[in-house]
Every structure is written in structure tokens, then in C-alpha cells.
């Protein structure tokens, strides 16, 4: 285990040790799962097993909670999160076409992550930028007045940046 991994696990264990001190400690499950997602970006199965063991909550029950809330990611997310707005304004300005373009370009559907772990695709309901509809957000940056070409160009910028980054490091 790398140092980073060990640190994550230690932080999680410390959090759970506090939780189990409390009365009705099983009601802290959601808080613990939030902690897992904060540390790992999603809920890895082996970490859910650790939670089951430490919190003395059956894994099936944890699975029920984890799948109930959309907030929890059950698979790893990419380095960048692409959120395509499907709010009313964006929708009438062609958001569906933007979404289709992203899907085709990244070869994934909503909720999935690309094989290279660079992008995760999500839908959004109104990002508050209706004036420049249709929009998408990558991480916390908004891109507006999109069409198919512009959308692909933006994605390619991220790919290019990633490539340069990788070259610099090697």
C-alpha cells in the first residue's frame, strides 16, 4: 500500500472509530460513506467491506444505502467531470445535441467514466448560465454557446493538456 493509500485508510478508520462510540452508531453509516467518497472519489467495494466490518453493519445493508442515493459513485470517477446542462433553456437551445456529441466523443453514457479515467459524464439541471445556453461545465469551469464542433474542441483541449502534462512528468 502506498503512503497515500495508508493515509486515506487511517483517516477513514479514525472517523469510524469516532462514529462507533455513539449511541445508534449504525445511523452514522451515511456520514461514513460520505467520508469514503470524499477520500476515494467513489465507494470502492473493498472499502465498503472495511466499513461493514468496523461498523458491524451487514454489507447488503450498506449496498442498499449506497445504491439508493444518487450522490454516491459506485465506480471510480475520472479526473474531470463533464456536466452537460439539460435545464429548460439549454434544452431548447440544443443541449441534447451537445450531450450526444459528448457521448459519441467520449464513447460513454451518462454516469460512466472513460477507459483512460480522464472524464466522467453527468447530466445537470440548470447551471445558472441560461444566457449563454447551451452550456456544459467541466469541473468548475462553464463553457457556453456550444455546438458540436465547439464541444469537441473543448474536450480536445483537456486531452491535449493531459498529454503535455504526462510528457512533462516523464
Amino acid at each position, binding site marked *: 500500500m502506498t503512503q497515500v493509500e495508508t493515509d486515506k485508510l487511517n483517516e477513514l478508520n479514525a472517523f469510524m472509530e469516532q462514529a462507533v462510540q455513539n449511541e445508534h452508531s449504525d445511523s452514522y453509516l451515511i456520514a461514513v460513506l460520505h467520508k469514503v467518497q470524499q477520500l476515494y472519489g467513489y465507494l470502492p467495494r473493498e472499502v465498503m*467491506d472495511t466499513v461493514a466490518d468496523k461498523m*458491524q453493519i*451487514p*454489507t*447488503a445493508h450498506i*449496498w*442498499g444505502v449506497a*445504491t*439508493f442515493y444518487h450522490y454516491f459513485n459506485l465506480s471510480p470517477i475520472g479526473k474531470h467531470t463533464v456536466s452537460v446542462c439539460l435545464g429548460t433553456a439549454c434544452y431548447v437551445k440544443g443541449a441534447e445535441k451537445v450531450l450526444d456529441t459528448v457521448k459519441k466523443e467520449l464513447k460513454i453514457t451518462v454516469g460512466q467514466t472513460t477507459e483512460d479515467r480522464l472524464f466522467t459524464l453527468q447530466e445537470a439541471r440548470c447551471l445558472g448560465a441560461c444566457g449563454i445556453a447551451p452550456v456544459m461545465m467541466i469541473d468548475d469551469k462553464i463553457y457556453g454557446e456550444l455546438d458540436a464542433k465547439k464541444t469537441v474542441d473543448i474536450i480536445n483541449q483537456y486531452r491535449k493538456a493531459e498529454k503535455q502534462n504526462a510528457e512533462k512528468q516523464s
Partner: protein
Amino acid sequence: MAEQITIYINNKEYKVDPGQTIMQAADKLGFHIPRLCYHPKLSIEGACRVCIVEVEGARNYVASCAYPVANGMKIHTNSQELRQARRDIIELILDNHPLDCHVCERDGNCELQRLASSMGIRARHFQGERKVYDKDLSSEAVIRDPEKCILCGRCVRMCSEIQQVHNLTQAHRGFDTVVMPAYDMPMGESVCTACGQCINVCPTAAFLEKNYTQDLFQKLNDPNLIKVVQFAPSVRAAIGEAFGIEPGRNMEGELIAALRKLGFNYVFDTQFSADLTIMEEGSEFLERVQNNGKLPMITSCSSAWMKCLEQFYPDLIENVSTCKSPMSMQGALTKSYFAQKIGVDPKKILSVAAMCCTAKKYEAAREELLVDGMRGVDIVVTTREISWMIKSAGIDLLHIQPEEPDHPLGESSGAGAIFGVTGGVMEAAIRTAYELYTGQTLIDIELESIRGLKGIKEGKIDLDGKEIRVAVAHGLGNACKLLDTVRKDPERYHFIEIMGCPGGCIGGGGQPYAQANSIPLDEGALMKRAQALYDLDRGKTIRRSHDNPDVQKLYKEFLHSPLSKVSHKYLHTHYKAKLPKGIIPKNG
């Protein structure tokens, strides 16, 4: 006792006890409010809304399973609007249910079907999206079919509350909700113990046993095979229910005759091997007592229990008897001793077991139980499957002339018969162990302290001045509780009997479905099945396993003595830890 209160049901006044739900009060007064997700042994879910009633002054209809009675409450159970609302609820459930009743395994035995019929639903008024899922066929014993599931949650509660295996959950939400094991694991890889209680409580066909009836019919017609069958004690005590008679009639003779009519060449009785189990297990226990072996010794007959132990109590594996279950002993002897006796190649023998159990399907496939590379039991069918086969072959079980089992693996004592009831294995073991140890005859052989449906029972026996403390648990939840005690206090007991199903094998996962107007695992019905076996015991001249002449003959001709080398080869096995990471029983 608190003072009674007054309620009005359908404008009639009644005095009832406070502190109960509307449904409970109504039940006692003879009003059967329709219900679906409710089961008296499980927690209240209130999910299906089928049991709604009208309470004057309440804003909406209330779920009578969850709503407490109050003084002066005016309840209507059958008003026209209420009937319509209830009917709409069932129709909406049906809308998302495959309407393939006539090709469904639960056809004629389905609670949803009965409910729809009692509501007078004769047409489909809703046409919505329908969920589509594949069947999970990965388990040797239990099939999961989410398409048939109506999300009542009885299986989830059964698995976690009574059995405490916690294998199932309702995952995802809304329209996408599915009952599944953690991580959507296939049943065959999950912590499912194959006990089959999810099947017992499922109102539809969302859980079923893996069905081998067609395969068996085909093999019964193969002239090159010697067809041998054994049947468990509890099958005879319950199979009548599948033919519409009251619980509690022992159908042993009729069943033997029916099995012969189905085409079996030899009909043996698992009770024979129950007697044999007692010889081996009783001797093993005495050996442990005399030589400071690992105690408490725990019985190993229940295959769901064995998987539960391997998964959750691997530290207690050494405590478990090395004896195979009676079914597997019988299977091993069928392919060795019996094959030699009739002078045939054991490969030509088809060894079938009719069991009250679904987990026996899983057990029969266990690699540890192979003898000379062969399975002792080739096909396991449940009481439900064999009763269907008997009906399908046009055999009139209720009016057939009773017959006797075949030798040399068919004769049994009364001790073998009570193997099917919680406490029975212990009682049978004590009858024999006492005599083997003291050399005296045990006079009072009916041990009341370990009979009945209490979750965990305790008893004491005096073995020539040595006090032996025994405990009995039925249902995996009770078993886990008992073993938690053993972990904390290993000296407390010497001998423990565990059966994985409520009531023991009589409440097995393969027993007939609850008939109309009854509920799955009804305690009254379980007690009647138990009584059938106790009566069978009482009616026998031979009531102690070691007095069974065929068992004595088997030792003389083949096994030599209990725990001999030959015995170990055919009748004993070993267990090993199976560690499903992170999945634990509560308080484990």
C-alpha cells in the same frame, strides 16, 4: 392487563385490548383484511398498502398492519371506495408484473394471484413500463427472478431478521429497486446459505428452488439406470398439505408407494441413515467427552447451517461433528454397500433424495462429499418438486395403498423419525449415547425440555454422575445467538444441536407452499408436522437408533464399528472456513 377499549368496525361495536394494530384486532374479530407484505414473524414494513382501511377522521386510508387501535375509533374495512382503492393498488402491482401465470411455477400457489382473484380483478386497466431482468441461476439451490418480484420485502426481512444471514437488500430506488445480494453478486457467490426461507415467504415466484423434475422424469425412464430414492423424515409429515389435506398427517406409506409408482426401483428411508448418524455422532461425542476432545460438539446435519458456520463462525469449525448429514451418508452407502450387495457398478445407480430442504441441493454438489470421485446423491428434489411429480404422473397419493420401504437401507427407529424436528437429533443422540456410556437403558426417552418451538432450548442429562449440558437452536438467527454465547462461554455446553430452519427440517425451505387461508411457517402448522413425527416415534417398537437391526447388520457386514476406517471413508467429512469479506451477522 390494561382496560379494554371500544372500537367500531363496519358500524358494529367491539371491545378490544389496546396496544395492538387494527389488523391484529380485526383478525381476532373475524375480519380478514387483505395483506401482502405483512408477516406476523417479521417486522412491519407497510410497503404494499394492500391492507389499507378507512378510519373516520383520518386524512387518508391507513395501513392496518401498522396503525394502532384507539378508543372510539371507527374503522371501515369494506366500503365501496376502499375496495376500489385496494383494487387499484393490486392492479398497479400487476401492471409491473409479468402476466405469465399459466407458465409460472407458482401458478395456483401464488399469493398475488389469489389476492387479484379475491379483488375481482378481471381486466388490465393500466399499461405502463415493465421491468426486465435476467434470472440469477448461479446458485445450486435458489433461483432469483427479479422480474417476478413485487418488492414486498418479506424475503429481505426473513433473511436478515429470522435467519440473520443478511444476504439480501433492496438496492437502488423507485422503479429501479431490485432485491439482490450485496454488490449485485450472483446468489451462488453470495453469503446465501441456500436455506430457502426466501422461497417460503415469497408471495410470487421471485425466489424458487432450482427445479430438477424434468431431468428426473427423463432419468426415471432410462432402462439402464437403477433408480434409488431416499426421503427425509419431514417430507412425510408435510407432503399431504400439497394435496390439500390438513397439516400433521404422516404420509410415509403412501409416499413410498407413490415413489415406486413413479419408477424408482428401490425406496429407502433417510431415517435409516438418521439412525446411523446417531451411531457415529453419539460415538464421536462420547469419544470427545472421554478423551478431552473439543467441546461443545455441534451437530452437522443441516447444510444451510454448515455454510453459515463456515462463513461466520470459522473459529468453531473444530467443534462441529465430522459426520456427514443423513442424506449424504445414505448416498455414500447407496453407491458402495448397496451397490456391492446387488452386484452392480455404482455408476449405474441413480441416487435421488426427496428432501424438505433446498440447501441439500447445494450440499449434494459439495466436493468434500464425493466418494471415489462420485456424488453420493445425484439429484435432490424438494417436497414441492416431488409432490408436483406425483401429481403430474397422475398418482393419487391420498388414496393409494401404503407400502413399506426396501432393505437394507430402509428400516428405521423412532429416534430416526424425530430427526426432522428441532431438538430431535439431540433427543435421538441422548437415547443412544446414554446407553453406550452407562450400559443402562434410558427409561424416560422423551425429553420435553428440548421439544417445542422456543428459539433456544437447554437441557441436562446425568451420565453416571457426569452432568451433560445440551442446547438446541432452530433458525439461523437463533443459531448465531447461541454460538455468540459459546464464543463467550465455551464451557457452558457439551453438546449443541442446530437446525437452520424455523422449527427444524419440518419448516424447511423446500416444504409445500402455504395453502390459501394459511401463512408460510405458521407455528400451528409446524407443531402439527412435528406431532406427526413424534407420533411416528411413539408408534414404533424400536425407538433407539442402536436397536435398529439393519444398522446393526450394516456394521457387521461393512462398517465394522462406529468411527472405524470404513466409517470415516464413507460417513465423515471435513469443513473449511469460507470468508466472505466484510459480510457479517449482526452482533457477530
